[in-house]
């Protein structure tokens, strides 16, 4: 893999051990700008660990991660966020005592590399709440929102800092079918309208196959396959490890 203008994020032989357990083992990945790449695999496969390495929560034990050509491996999370990688959490972690608007303002104020004041942040936050369809709940305390709405707040917060790449950790899991359709549409809009590249961990296979341009499959910390959705669902290794024989595409 060479340095390519169209590759926004590139990992080479990235690995992380917890004690004797290899949580992520020599994983290569490259995320093209403007494509939706999904990361799938069974529970404990290392998906969230890989996200945490990219976001700076964990320092990789080996391997390199380049974002826009710059090495980011081991940088602290707030620096990586300011560089243009924002994220949502699998277990929603909004600031529950703040309103939706204030949550989004946090992203607008602190994820930006330049100084952003309250006024500017508030305008940007409103825009993002509008984008995720939560304008009506701008002044609702996040702790009082439903799970689906809290996930939208997370997304608005992640988008408010104008990132180049957004790590979405199971944005759809736990939503009902109607909400799933809305969320899928939202991810598509993030890519098409905001020109932000999503890198997306998900278990809801229908959504993944519908939406992803490219899929990476992890199992026991190792990359066992990657390719187009059609290729992945017929890959015997992926069927054995994750999808199961009865999965019909």
């Amino acid at each position, binding site marked *: 893999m060479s340095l390519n203008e169209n590759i926004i994020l590139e990992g080479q032989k990235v690995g992380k051990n917890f004690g004797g357990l290899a949580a992520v083992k020599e994983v290569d990945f490259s995320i093209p700008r403007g494509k939706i790449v999904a990361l799938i695999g069974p529970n404990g496969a290392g998906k969230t660990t890989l996200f945490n390495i990219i976001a700076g929560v964990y320092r990789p034990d080996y391997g390199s991660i380049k974002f826009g050509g710059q090495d980011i491996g081991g940088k*602290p999370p707030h620096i990586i966020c300011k560089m243009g990688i924002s994220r949502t*959490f699998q277990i929603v972690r909004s600031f529950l005592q703040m309103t939706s608007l204030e949550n989004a303002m946090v992203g607008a104020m*602190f994820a930006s590399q330049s100084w952003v004041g309250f006024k500017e942040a508030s305008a940007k936050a409103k825009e993002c709440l509008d984008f995720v369809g939560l304008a009506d709940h701008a002044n609702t305390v996040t702790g009082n929102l439903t799970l689906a709405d809290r996930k939208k707040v997370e997304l608005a917060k992640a988008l408010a800092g104008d990132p180049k790449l957004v790590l979405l950790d199971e944005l759809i899991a736990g939503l009902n079918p109607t909400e799933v359709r809305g969320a899928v549409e939202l991810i598509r809009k993030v890519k098409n309208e905001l020109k932000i590249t999503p890198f997306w961990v998900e278990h809801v296979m229908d959504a993944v196959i519908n939406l992803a341009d490219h899929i990476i499959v992890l199992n026991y910390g190792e990359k066992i396959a990657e390719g187009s959705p059609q290729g992945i669902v017929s890959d015997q290794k992926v069927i054995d490890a994750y999808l199961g024989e009865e999965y019909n595409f």
Partner: protein
Amino acid sequence: MEMKNVVSIRNAVALLILIVLVVLPFVMSGYVVSLVASILAAGVLAGSWNLMAGFTGYVSFGHQAFFGLGAYGTAILVTSLNLGEGSLFYSILFGGIVSAAVAFAFGYLAFILRGPYFSILTLGFSEFLYVIMVNTPWFGGAEGLNLPPVYVLPKYYMVCLVLFVASFIFFYWMRQSKFGFALSTIRQDEDAAESSGVATLRYKIVALTVSAIFPGLIGGAYVWYITYIDAVAAFNPHVAVQMIAITMFGGLGTVVGPMIGAFFFVILSELLWSSMPELYLVVLGITIIFVIEFFPRGIVVRAMEALKTEVV
């Protein structure tokens, strides 16, 4: 009552209190002046503790350390250079700087830890300083340090009043600032704050440093007032307990809670102390339990909610 009326009444009351506080030392007896100075000092101390515990979510059990460091900083400067009363203000300032500098350094070490581990470390930190002071002859050892025996009550009062007003303005500003916003995110979910671009370590260290400056200045002023300091008085856990009790009494995480809490708490202590010295701590303890049991968010917050006014 309409919101606007409540706000204007509140501002009028605040202005009235300020006028009374400024005029007070010129018209009242020494006893009243020293009592009110204690209230102001206690308010500043509790407010500083509240900056960490209430706004940032880091509970310190050793905040008396910063009071003690200020007291020692001032006392060492005055005694080693043989300074007189003329040095009062800048020697107090020096105490504040010492306290802030130590807090800044301590922050780098301490913020590796979170939650209860941080709290226990602060407890050990104060004990550590206590042992250092007691065993170092240059710091006066167990006998402590004596300052020039001058009568500085009016100046002490004024320093406390200035710090009270300054800390109030600072906390009030902070509440609606980007800085306060950052501390609030750290309190609610530190990992999420960090991932949202908040430089959490930097904000925590700044918060700790600020929350050490005010107690350091109060400590410096206090040492002039009582003209003497030793390690037992400087690093007394009772000081931290009082900061915690006052803040819980008034309202954790609010600006006016510790300030108004200090008023009730010090007056109550004084009344109990003079009327039933043998039961003083018992009754005080029961009162605190009662308040926390029935007004867990503090009496000031409860009153503000009753008045349907914004909780400040």
